[in-house]
């Protein structure tokens, strides 16, 4: 009866697509498999029929026992019973296998479509969604989508069973059938009410349990400190409280979930008693009060076999009924999951490309001409923005958070579509460029260096043409960023695996590898968001040197956080509120004593030798 408990832990989502539209779309994925679907439908109906015939023939057999046992007939009837049993099993097995294959095929089709859609989305799309959520939609929500079909197929089977069983019972005794059908709503109501209660308990406990779990983990990680201060009792108290809470919440949840099966058993017990009593009454044809109640319903005479049939029919009838009752909310969840998947596919791009100009000049001259851009309507981040970056220039951008630094960088990367003005690259309108070709000439280094969970070599060579001299080129770039020494010292050298997101390497090492990759790629334009995490002085030195190295030989735009980077720039622009308010070299700007010198004071002062010397000489 586990299905009654399924899907209680998931939360509701907003729905935008209509149910009918969704269903149509979902079924469209199964059109290529309509042959299999028909077979499945047939299979499940026939299986249900065969299953319903088994108790029928058992009851017939029982009836023949009254008139003296004719073994030929008995063998025949028992043979039929066995035959239907085997048929029921066989058909069910076949349709289950067929369903699994068909559903999985349709799911693969959908997943491929989702992946293709992801490859086409604007880059800004990925900014607005957590990575984990996108991956989960592609893998888990598509599973739930498949479940919609499996659920529906099962529902069909159950409906067919219920209809067959009712038909057989009705033809046997209308009166008893009516009684059974009056009982049915009670069972359904119980099942539905249970689901409602259980769902509330499940959702409520989920939140608390997540918190309690986190706290238990925290107190476990704090044992070391607690012991260093000999305060084991203190941390134990904290732990104890959490442990108790976890117990209380889990227990309450468990008690609720464990009640459904017993309650349904009780209901079955009542049902059985009812059949026994009323069945017996029909046989006796007694004029008792309770019999008079239902006297108006036709169907009096009852044989032993029929009596038995009703007892069996009750069970055959109840389980599908409960499953049907649980169907709707699970179905809704499947629809919600499908909707999430479709919304991924349907998302619209805003970045426009109206031509296929391939950027051949490899100069890297960038011009912003009266550009206006807003993420949301009426909230302009950039307004009538102008900037001319020369080919090969090293440009540093500084400013407080929200000044527009990363927006500027993202517009060059074609993450977003701007509303007004023009951006040209090497004289070409950026909207006319073949985006794929353009991106190849662009390299990006973000604060969080990205590495594949593969070897250092594979990371370096990703997407790089492996020419004959590739080994020499590799060695050359690695030594230019001072990475060769320590890589050679690693147990597997260049073939060392870097781990998920580069976890097996230190932060400094990750950055150096990313820098080496830049040199190998040799892009025309480099956009860099300098990392701010602190490294040990030796690694820091290497990274600073390597940073200066990669900024050469191309147009480099750096959102700078290091003093040395700023000092090495050809030009610094100071941004505030989406505008360039100051521009020049470091010395020029410091002399001017404006916004820049404030920024310097806030973010860069402590990186200077002057600060170090002053601190060193300060009195105790």
């Amino acid at each position, binding site marked *: 009866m586990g299905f009654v408990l399924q899907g209680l832990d998931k939360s509701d989502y907003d729905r935008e697509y209509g149910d009918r539209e969704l269903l149509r779309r979902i079924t469209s994925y199964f059109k290529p498999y309509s042959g299999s679907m028909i077979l499945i439908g047939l299979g499940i109906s026939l299986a249900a029929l065969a299953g319903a015939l088994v108790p029928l023939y058992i009851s017939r057999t029982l009836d023949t026992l009254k008139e003296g046992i004719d073994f030929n007939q008995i063998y025949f009837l*028992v043979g039929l019973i066995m035959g239907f049993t085997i048929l029921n099993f066989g058909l069910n097995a076949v349709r289950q296998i067929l369903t699994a294959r068909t559903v999985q095929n349709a799911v693969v089709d959908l997943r491929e479509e989702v992946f293709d859609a992801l490859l086409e989305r604007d880059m800004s799309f990925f900014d607005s969604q957590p990575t984990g959520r996108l991956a989960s939609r592609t893998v888990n929500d598509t599973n739930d989508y498949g479940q919609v079909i499996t659920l529906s197929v099962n529902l069909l089977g159950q409906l067919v069973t219920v209809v067959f069983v009712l038909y057989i019972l009705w033809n046997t005794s209308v009166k008893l059938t009516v009684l059974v059908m009056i009982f049915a709503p009670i069972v359904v109501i119980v099942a539905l009410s249970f689901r409602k209660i259980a769902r509330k308990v499940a959702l409520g406990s989920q939140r608390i349990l997540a918190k309690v779990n986190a706290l238990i983990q925290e107190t476990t990680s*704090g044992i070391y400190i607690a012991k260093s201060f000999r305060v084991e009792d203190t941390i134990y108290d904290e732990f104890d409280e959490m442990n108790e809470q976890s117990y209380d919440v889990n227990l309450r949840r468990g008690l609720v979930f464990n009640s459904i099966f017993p309650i349904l058993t009780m209901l079955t017990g009542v049902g059985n008693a009812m059949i026994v*009593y009323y069945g017996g009454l029909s046989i006796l044809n007694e004029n008792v009060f309770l019999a008079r109640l239902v006297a108006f319903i036709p169907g009096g005479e009852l044989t032993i076999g029929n009596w038995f049939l009703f007892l069996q029919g009750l069970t055959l009838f109840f389980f599908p009924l409960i499953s049907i009752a649980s169907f709707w909310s699970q179905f809704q969840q499947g629809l919600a999951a499908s909707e999430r998947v479709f919304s991924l596919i349907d998302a619209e791009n805003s970045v426009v490309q109206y031509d296929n100009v391939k950027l051949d000049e490899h100069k890297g001259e960038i011009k912003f001409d009266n550009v206006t851009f807003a993420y949301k309507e009426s909230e302009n981040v950039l307004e009538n923005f102008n900037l001319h970056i020369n080919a090969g220039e090293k440009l540093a951008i500084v400013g407080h958070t929200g000044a527009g630094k990363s927006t500027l960088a993202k517009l060059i990367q074609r993450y977003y579509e701007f509303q007004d003005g023009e951006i040209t690259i090497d004289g070409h309108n950026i909207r006319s460029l073949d985006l794929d070709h353009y991106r190849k000439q662009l390299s990006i280094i973000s604060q969080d260096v990205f590495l594949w969970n593969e070897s250092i070599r594979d990371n370096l060579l990703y997407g790089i043409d492996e020419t004959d001299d590739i080994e020499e080129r590799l060695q050359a770039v690695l030594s230019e960023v001072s990475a060769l020494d320590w890589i050679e010292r690693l147990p597997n050298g260049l073939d060392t695996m870097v781990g998920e997101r580069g976890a097996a390497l230190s932060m400094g090492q990750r950055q150096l590898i990313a820098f080496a990759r830049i040199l190998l790629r040799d892009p025309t334009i480099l956009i860099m968001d300098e990392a701010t995490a602190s490294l040990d002085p030796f690694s820091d030195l290497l990274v600073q040197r390597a940073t200066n190295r990669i900024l050469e030989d191309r147009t480099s735009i750096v959102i700078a956080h290091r003093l040395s980077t700023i000092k090495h720039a050809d030009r610094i622009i100071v941004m505030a509120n989406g505008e360039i308010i100051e521009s020049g070299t470091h010395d020029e700007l410091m002399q001017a004593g404006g916004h820049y010198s404030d920024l310097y*004071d806030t973010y860069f002062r402590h990186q200077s030798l002057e600060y170090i010397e002053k601190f060193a000489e300060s009195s105790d």
Partner: protein
Amino acid sequence: MATVQQSEYTPRRDYKTNRSSPLRWIMSHVSRHWFLFLLVVIFTILNSIFSSTVPQLIGQAFDLFKDNKLGIEDLSSISLQVLLFGVGAGVVQLFRSWSTEFISQRMEKETRDELYSSLLRKSLTFHDKQKIGDLMTRATGDVRQINFMMNPGFNLVFQSIVGIIVPITFMAMINVQLVIIPVIYIIVFLFVLKRYRDKQAPWTMKVRSAASTTQSRLNETISGMYVVRGSSEEDTERQIFNKNINEYKEAQVKLGEIQAKYWPILILGVATSLGFLHGIILVNSGVITVGQLITFVLLFQLLRFPTFINVFAITVLTLGVTAAGRILELIEGESEIDLNPEGYSNTIEGKIEFRDVTFSYNENTPVLNNISFEVNPGETVALVGMTGAGKTTITKLLSRLYDPDSGDILIDGVDAQDWSIQSLRSQMALVEQDIFLFSKTIKENIMLGNPDATMEDVIEAAKLANAHEFIMETPDGYDSEIGERGTQLSGGQKQRVAIARAIVKRPRILILDDASSAIDSQTEDEINQAIKDVLKGRVSFLITHRIAQIRRADKIILLEQGKIIDIGDHEQLIKSSAKYRELFSIYDDFDEKSVIGGN
């Protein structure tokens, strides 16, 4: 290296459990709730008996009817009994399930408690060797497995076993011959069930791993989407994705095929038909009545429950035992440092000497290789080097978390191994890399360093740690609660509270592992001031990246791959060490020549 295990702490609750094997350990936990367990057994048996009585009653009614002896009183009486036993079966089932749930939840709580208490008793060395992630998994995940092992594991399996024995017994009570076919069925069933489990298990794992591979690779692709596009590697990524989802599909389909061919269902159906036939033969020879035949058929159908048993319930039993094994491993784990309570004990002056110290954590590559240096009382030592150079290891050897493989460590001229650990550690304080503060008031957190501290001591320590000002700006000052339920402190503020906590202890040796990075100059000022002030008046070991701090140190030790490459103060090193000079080469106002050339 002595191996006497002396406990540093006695836990409040002592669990006297049998730890000789995971199974025995689990059973000793179950036996703590022997009464509930007894109830479970009784209720399970009653449940089955009640359920089996209903067919009996129905059979009786049928016989009475057949012999035309069925009167209204008999019918009413039998119907009432069917009602009572039927509903009774459900009621008893409810109590049984609840009792099992109580046991399983209590077991989770108590095994977790036992694990935690035993962890508290282990030495610092033991904890230093653990991976935090591991500990947390054992405390949450593995303990949860033991819970599941009881319910649904034991719950369903025991119910099934009883649910086979009782109906068959009832059948035997009618006539012994009847049990032949059911018993044969059960034997065949058990055999087929085992084969099914063996077939299904690897594919269940394959499905899970295929799903996880697909998702994590996709995660990567999405994270690196810009790189993918920028390198025109879309086709490569597509190929990888397709390969993954097809493997996932194949695994799911294969698992579905195996699950569809769950033979026990078929065998039960066939066996029921054969049993039915057998019963008719017996009716024919007058051994049993038609009513008893009906009882027999209904009893046979009770075997449906064990047949449909969720195979997972069986798997969960073994998973629970494996989890118990992992937990026991932790509980039984030991560490090797002798506390040496009779050892040398005195106020530490602060003369520290490392003589040719070599050390490795796991007998592979040495982390420290023939390290020698001397520190004088009151000096600040800056340990500088890349990750893995050996800086933290030196501090761990100093506090005797470990002992060197060779060489000596002397504190005030006395070998560290001759000191009483209690005496040593009570005069040392550590500010760790990842700050851990309790969810208590700031005052209480600081006082952890010294429970006997007065409010003046606390404020003095906070001032020294440059924390007093920001503390006074919090809603309740020193009485502000921090953590989940209280005020959230920034990383730098947490660090300064931790520094105050260390200082209030008035340690003779301070170890400060400073890994934080400052985004702005003001925070940098505050931290630097705090660190600067607390280093005085004691021997301080500073692991830091901050050049400002390094430059001020009395002794700078440059480490590379476990070896000291240079040692001295700033003035000395700037002249003698090329490596040290290199660190300053990044400042363009650094005049290298003038520094080397003269004064």
